């Protein structure tokens, strides 16, 4: 049971439970990622079809409402929109859905008829990944640095300010940070030109590798990026601080001190490196939180990312788009998780070795 106490091992050992003998950590991580996407897609597929008032019925209702179309015609049109045969049993529908999915076909939007869901999602996903990614990378670097600083200056004024500030900022829901920016900085004080900063780019600007385009993209990304930064920086400060305090009490740190290593080397190579490990695995969870919040955050800033598109799909009951966005977002977070797992095994040599550190 030693295995359960080592912070490094649960991920590897969990996957091993499912897989039995496929032991290589990379293979495990990839398989787990694949399984997650598969299960999520399956659950949402059946959920959408088993819920009362499924999208097909809603579409049929909508089409027959004005009496211009018979029930059969409406049903046929609804079925073609969904690219599924309604008379087939749900299981067969599921098989054909998965078949389409394997070809990269997510069906067609209800509202923008004839537009493939894939095209809609791919048009908005990069903006969200860009803004969330930039915000999180910034907050991770700054937060880890500040957390390390706070731990090394424990119980000083700077530590108290950082810790209390970290607690306060991490208690504020991320969408409220966005809303406060709008109503306080934008409307009340008029420090931030929120109307000019709307959108992912200014209208009419030519995309390209030009100075003005990149400047414009950054200008429009400032607000969402600051929200993602502020919403997660407290978490990293507090997490890094307590991880560093724990690491400072480890025997290998005392041993390193006894060997006469310089403080700077102990801080980077021994304390910092070990303390940052558990935080790396939290990156994916934090990204999931940020992307979830993006639904509201992007609507406050009118930033054309996944969140804004999903909100539109929800209000229009555009189920294929909803399902497509859910799938793509899950895929992004799963890939990020995978990257974090691989980075983790890179940073922690105990995991990289065959059989890992668990020895189970």
């Amino acid at each position: 049971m030693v295995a359960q106490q080592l912070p490094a091992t649960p991920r590897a050992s969990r996957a091993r439970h499912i897989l039995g003998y496929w032991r290589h950590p990379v293979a495990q991580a990839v398989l787990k990622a694949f399984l997650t996407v598969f299960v999520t897609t399956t659950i949402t597929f059946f959920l959408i079809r088993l819920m009362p008032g499924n999208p097909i019925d809603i579409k049929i209702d909508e089409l027959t409402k004005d009496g211009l179309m018979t029930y059969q015609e409406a049903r046929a049109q609804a079925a073609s929109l969904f690219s599924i045969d309604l008379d087939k049993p749900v299981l067969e529908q599921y098989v054909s859905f998965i078949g389409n999915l394997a070809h990269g076909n997510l069906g067609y939007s209800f509202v923008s008829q004839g537009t493939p869901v894939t095209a809609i999602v791919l048009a908005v996903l990069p903006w969200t990944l860009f803004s969330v990614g930039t915000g999180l990378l910034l907050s991770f670097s700054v937060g880890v640095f500040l957390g390390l600083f706070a731990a090394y200056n424990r119980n000083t004024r700077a530590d108290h300010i950082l810790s209390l500030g970290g607690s306060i900022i991490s208690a504020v829901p991320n969408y409220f940070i966005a809303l406060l920016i709008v109503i306080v900085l934008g409307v009340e004080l008029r420090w931030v030109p929120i109307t000019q900063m709307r959108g992912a780019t200014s209208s009419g600007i030519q995309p390209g590798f030009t100075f003005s385009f990149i400047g414009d993209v950054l200008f429009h990304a400032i607000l969402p990026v600051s929200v993602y930064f502020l919403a997660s920086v407290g978490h990293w400060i507090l997490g890094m601080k307590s991880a560093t305090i724990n690491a400072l009490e480890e025997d290998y740190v005392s041993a390193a001190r006894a060997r006469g290593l310089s403080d700077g080397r102990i801080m980077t190579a021994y304390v910092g490196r070990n303390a940052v490990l558990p935080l790396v695995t939290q990156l994916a969870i934090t990204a999931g939180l940020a992307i979830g919040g993006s639904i509201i955050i992007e609507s406050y800033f009118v930033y054309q990312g996944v969140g804004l598109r999903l909100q539109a799909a929800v209000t229009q009951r555009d189920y294929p788009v909803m399902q497509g966005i859910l799938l793509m977002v899950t895929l992004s977070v799963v890939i990020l998780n995978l990257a974090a797992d691989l980075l983790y095994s890179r940073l922690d040599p105990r995991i990289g070795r065959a059989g890992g550190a668990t020895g189970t």
Partner: protein
Amino acid sequence: MTAAAIPRRGDRTLPGPIEGGLEFLRLLSRRPSGLVGFAGIVFFLVLAFVAPIFVPNQESGDVNAIYQTPSAQHFLGTDNTGRDVLNQIVQGGKEIIGVALITAFLTTLVATVLGSVSALVGGRFDAALVGLADILLTVPPLIVLIVISALARPTNFLALALVLSLLGWAGLMRQVRAQVLTLKERDYVEAAKSLDLGLTHIVFREILPNMRSYIVIHFVLAMTGAIYAQVALIILGLVPFSGKNWALMLYFAQTQGAFYFRDAFWFVFSPIFAIILLQLSLVLFVNAMEDIFNPRLRSS
């Protein structure tokens, strides 16, 4: 929680609920931020559940007094129909806190039961549950909640709490499982097993009482998660509630375009501030609790 006052044998004596509570308050009083959090929680419970008894619910507004800025008559100004904002703040806490409490209770219950049973039973059951929890932890919860709520349209707050706890149990379940895995090797659990006392007895009498502090911390954390998620769902208009509720105030403010109207500042700011203060109180309280129950941090 039911097993709070069980007499313990030998050196494994746990403090009873009263002495344990007093000891906790004593340790809490040394932590100013924890004390502030505790006071905040008490304040919000009183505001949400006691104050509405004494403050009459103002149903109709005054069309001559819309979007007023704070004054002696209306401490926090008025909304788009001239109703007092402070009155709505007083009336609008019960649903938010009620849903948070029910969700936290359900989440903690499910997570604790599944986590301990999973650890004690082991085998395929354990592997399947852990796999499911892993998947739930990877998928962005708010996105899934939005998809589910768009389909299910929870109309009362029990339904909303059920939807919210559907996704919230995974993290705690995994941690309870890990804790139980280490606890179950202890002598007193081995003794209970060899006495053939049954799974229920082992879980509720031997293991859970030793995880009380841990469970309480996660109950409060589950509350903050539930508040975050339900406010998001209400703001998005996915929960067709009526009545007075801080998050609903923001939903109406948005549909009225009040965010961009300078005189509506207090109408928009007040519910945000109330929710943030509530979350902050819970977080400060949890931090202090973690501090108290984690001996490594406490020693300094």
